[in-house]
């Protein structure tokens, strides 16, 4: 299974990344490319929509850590939405949820953005 990440704008200063398929360390190029596209127009908040996530290993979580650090350095804010209960637990377990705002769905994330 491959990774598909599509960037779209969702209002002033906000972009959404729709993540589908697998997130592993091999997803780095596609994730970083989509992130660059998301912030190219000056977005300061990026919502990661995990509703289409089907598989993630520890390499994938490492990739998200790298993205969080990068966003923090650039004064950008990352939010997450659409996580299934399973992936929500992994965010808690790995303590990513200490740093990234997690919302049930895109509407809730956009309201918080």
């Amino acid at each position: 299974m491959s990774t598909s990440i599509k960037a779209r704008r969702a209002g002033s200063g906000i972009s959404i990344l729709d993540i589908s398929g697998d997130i592993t360390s091999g997803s780095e190029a596609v994730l970083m490319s989509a992130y660059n596209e998301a912030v190219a127009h000056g977005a300061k908040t990026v919502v990661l929509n995990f509703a289409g996530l089907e598989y993630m290993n520890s390499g994938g979580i490492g990739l998200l850590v790298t993205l969080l650090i990068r966003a923090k350095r650039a004064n950008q804010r990352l939010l997450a939405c659409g996580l299934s209960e399973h992936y929500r637990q992994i965010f808690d377990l790995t303590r990513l949820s200490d740093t990234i705002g997690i919302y049930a769905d895109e509407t809730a994330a956009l309201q918080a953005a």
Partner: protein
Amino acid sequence: MDTSDPTPRDAANWARKSEALKVGDLPAEAVNLNVEGRRVVGPLQGFGQLWQKTYRLRLEGCAATPEEVVAAWKEHFPEFQPPQNRFFPSVAGVAPGEVVLINASLQGMPVQTGVMVLYADEVSFTLMTPEGHPESGWVTFSAWEEQGCTIAQVQSMARANDPIYEIGFALGGSAAQEAIWRHVLLSLAAHHGVTEQPVQFEKQCVDRQLQWDQAGNIRHNAAIRSLLYALGRPFRRN
């Protein structure tokens, strides 16, 4: 996507969420200190600069598949460590959610700590550190095939857990730790009959900023607590 089965493919590979670590049955010689009841901490917690370090070795001439290499790695993990690093897996071994106790010596100082198996599949496993461990983060052991050759890799993503450890890493702890993972890779290679291959190493500072809001992690420092435990040994009944 098969929507009829809501169980993700990776569900069995991850540890279950738990607020605090629980240590299982262990050999009598293992010192269970600084792990029970602690929370795990990742690369986003901790105090020091965040480093990603990658150690890689080509198992040239070895017929073992990546799956076989990782299976042997899990089974013989304690034996692949250098003598000053004693690892005590639980009876379940290297499996998601299991705790591996570590009774180590870091630059001559005793450090009793441990790690939790965060993730394990057929070609990789990841260990995550608890509060008080020298590092806050995780390390992944993996293998894959590249042009007919099995590659074994250790990759850590971690920062020093508190200011004392950050100073310790700058004063030689970092080099000592790098030597440990080189030793582990070379032991794995030797187990598979490969003795002439070098370990390729690269490191990258992912985050140069110190996280001063985490400086209070010193209260959990396993090295200090292990030293106090050792000093108090003559005065204890057991």
